[in-house]
């Protein structure tokens, strides 16, 4: 049985912050390039949903029977994230979900688990999603080097675009990079010590062992995907393991930054978008040990190359010019609160209404055909009771019917709210907040799609829901 990658997607947030903007705030040297920044309504859960949704262009969401979520910055310390991701992705009920955490190789560990599950026959189509929004100490190199992003890889045995040849993992115990409970920022040991005894040792060991195990020669491998904490660490590993710079896959450290658990998978997605059938890809990631994989690309890879979504997310971006807003977006600097919310959240109502709130389901009357959002038990058009089919709406696009740029509704760190009423091709109306807009470009008729976001924190938990956003187009 051929087991391997059946779909792949990566997501990069719209906002990019030039590293010199951070450096200027601290009157220190700038590292070259820019970093991606999750919006104030994004986190490691919402970005995971974005990447997962890309995969559904190539695998049916109803075929997914296992979902693995990986992050070191999950928005809850205790509470499954994979269950929310599964709901937002509108996956079927009764699937296996699991959360991987604590190490930057959690994404590849989840991938290996997914491959093992499919090989063992316990899952037919397993989806791995990884996302991170890590915080370096203010003024540290990491603050500039880190970036926010997500990646998703589906694994199965049908429609395989990159077949697994083999994998090899090592585990190494070392206190090199760590974050204590309740800490916001990541701690690092002495630089040469952690590089030499941590990253370099584990990565070279795993890569060499995998090459030996599979009997592969360096020159047989076209793309070498090596996760990298800094701008050049991956090229050092490549050199130590006998690869030439030409074989090394771009890390996007100058465009995105080190996006933690998502980084190796995001680089893998990029490699797939750029590969040719027959190519061999080596993937290696680090985090208290290393995971290494060899994949062989098949003809099926063309399906993601027709519409390379990672490339599109990489190239569509918006500058963030403010270091203070960067801190505010991440909750590191709390701006003055705005008007309090006067409707109080309820976790029982949130649970009860999750088909609308998390899955973005509407109802379509089986008697008269009227479609509406959210679910209405009694048809607004013909009055029939409980005669409807639930309809999945989150993949649709809609056009703005009317809107208002509301200066009163927002919080001080997210001051502008575009109250939006949009209409899709079936006449379903959506009342949603808009995100990632340019206030001068919001217009009646503008095309929007749906994106899963944080709405607010009330009731001491996070309320996630959908927003609409102008379709991200290159050049914007």
């Amino acid at each position, binding site marked *: 049985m051929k087991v391997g990658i059946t779909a792949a997607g990566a997501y990069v947030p719209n906002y990019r912050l030039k590293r010199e903007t951070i450096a200027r705030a601290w009157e220190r040297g700038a590292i070259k390039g820019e970093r991606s920044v999750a919006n104030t309504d994004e986190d490691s859960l919402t970005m995971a949903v974005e990447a997962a949704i890309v995969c559904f262009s190539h695998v049916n969401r109803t075929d997914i029977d296992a979902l693995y979520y990986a992050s070191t910055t999950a928005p809850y310390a205790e509470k499954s994230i994979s269950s929310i991701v599964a709901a937002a992705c509108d996956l079927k009920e009764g699937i296996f979900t699991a959360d991987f955490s604590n190490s930057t190789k959690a994404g590849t560990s989840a991938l290996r688990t997914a491959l093992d599950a499919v090989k063992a026959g316990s899952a037919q189509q397993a989806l791995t999603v990884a996302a991170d929004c890590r915080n370096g100490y203010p003024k540290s190199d990491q603050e500039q080097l880190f970036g926010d992003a997500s990646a998703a890889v589906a694994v199965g045995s049908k429609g395989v675009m990159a077949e697994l040849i083999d994998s090899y993992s090592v585990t190494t115990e070392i206190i090199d990079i760590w974050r204590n409970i309740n800490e916001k920022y990541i701690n690092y040991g002495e630089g040469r010590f952690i590089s030499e005894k941590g990253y370099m040792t584990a990565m070279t060991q795993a890569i060499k062992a995998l090459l030996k195990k599979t009997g592969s020669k360096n020159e047989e491998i076209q793309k070498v995907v090596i996760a990298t904490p800094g701008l050049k660490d991956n090229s050092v590993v490549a050199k130590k393991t006998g690869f030439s710079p030409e074989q090394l896959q771009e890390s996007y450290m100058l465009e995105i930054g080190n996006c933690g658990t998502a980084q190796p998978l995001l680089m893998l997605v990029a490699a797939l978008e750029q590969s040719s059938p027959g190519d061999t890809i080596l993937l290696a990631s680090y985090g208290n040990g290393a995971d290494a994989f060899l994949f062989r690309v098949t003809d099926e890879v063309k399906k993601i190359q027709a519409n390379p979504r990672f490339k599109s997310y990489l190239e569509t971006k918006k500058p963030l010019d403010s270091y203070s807003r960067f801190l505010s977006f991440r909750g590191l600097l709390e701006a003055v609160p705005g008007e309090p919310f006067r409707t109080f*959240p309820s976790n029982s109502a949130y649970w009860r209404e999750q088909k609308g709130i998390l899955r973005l389901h509407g109802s379509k009357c089986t008697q008269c055909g009227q479609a509406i959002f*959210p679910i209405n038990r009694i048809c607004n058009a013909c009055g029939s009771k409980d005669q409807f089919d639930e309809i999945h709406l989150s993949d649709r696009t809609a056009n703005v019917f009317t809107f208002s740029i509301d200066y009163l*509704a927002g919080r001080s760190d997210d001051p502008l709210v575009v*109250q939006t009423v949009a209409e899709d091709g079936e006449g379903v109306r959506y009342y949603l907040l808009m995100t990632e807009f340019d206030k001068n470009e919001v217009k*009646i008729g503008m095309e929007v799609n749906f994106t899963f976001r944080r*709405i607010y924190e009330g009731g001491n938990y996070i309320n996630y829901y959908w927003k609409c956003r102008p379709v991200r187009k290159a050049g914007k």
Partner: protein
Amino acid sequence: MTIKDQVAIAGMGCSRFGERWDCGAGDLAIESAYEAYEDAGVGPKDIEAVFVGQMYAPVGGLAGAQVIDALKFNNIPVIRNENWCCAGHVALISACMAVASGAYDVVMALGVEKLKDTGFPGLGAGRGMNPVYEARRTAPGSFALIGTRYFEQYGLTMAEGKEAIAKIAVKNHKNGMLAPKAHFHREVTVEDVLKAPMIASPLGLLDCCGNSDGSACAIITRADTAKKLRPDPIYIKGFGMSMDAILPHSRPGFNWTSFDALKTSSSKAYEMAGIKDPRNEIDVAEVHDCFTITEMMIYEDFGFSKRGKAKEDIDAGFFELNGALPVNVDGGLKCFGHPVGASGIRMTYEIYKQLQYKVDNPKRQVKDVKRALSHTFGGPPQLSCVLVAGNEKG
């Protein structure tokens, strides 16, 4: 069914509106109720039932307790509603129906709101009904959706549309200068309105009404015995109450420039009152100018202006104090602010005084008044209430 000429208003009272830091809800209720008692020549012992309109003050779920505690009614029915901005009208119309039914002869309708104890800011930030679907729904942000769509539908540029609604703000502020009980006494120019900070596009600060505290009260009695209480009772000619079934934001096919609730509540009231041509038969109207665009849309849904032609009437001064159909002659919500449950009865207080030629400042008295209308429009919006009154039977 009609209650035309079966019920009369025998007395009314209205507190001063504004940021009444000196008063609680009970003090405001006392201020309006005792003016109404004196006006009707009755006392607390004559009241057989009380209908209260009160939305927050300071929270929901208080029954009519704040009013009862202040006014010391004992062992009579007190029925409170919190039907958004229409709560005052709902109380008033309920009181009329209670008298028309024959159950009571003398009842009180009282609207009161003490918003400034609830941390409400200067503008109505009223929140949605669902904490997730409507997490950041605001009143300006909802009514602004009408403006964006109205301008689009009738081909008005932002500048043309803004100027048309600005003239409504200018008119109401000018009228409010003549109303001693109003919250705001400040004349504004079109330029002031256009230059005011944007609140929810296309609505700027001066397109929005403010929040204030206030109370208003009516004593309702049988029309056939009303003249025993006073020589000039005001007769209820008709009413309409209508609620749209679904949040307008979610309603398929909804055009956002005309609300069924506005059309049906006004047409029901006209039908009951025997009005066929409201543009010419209504002599003075107090309508729900929570935002200037709301008043503009109401002109059309109430048949004051032809569809899409409100701007022409605004430009011609049709609704100004000396125009053919003066609207919001006391300055409206724009100048009184909007203590939610009190507003409908405050508006009715104005038309009551107009119909009696007893307005507290004769400079805003409209001449030749026979039929007058008061109206509130509430919620996201979904609910509309209209009352038509006259100073003679028939």
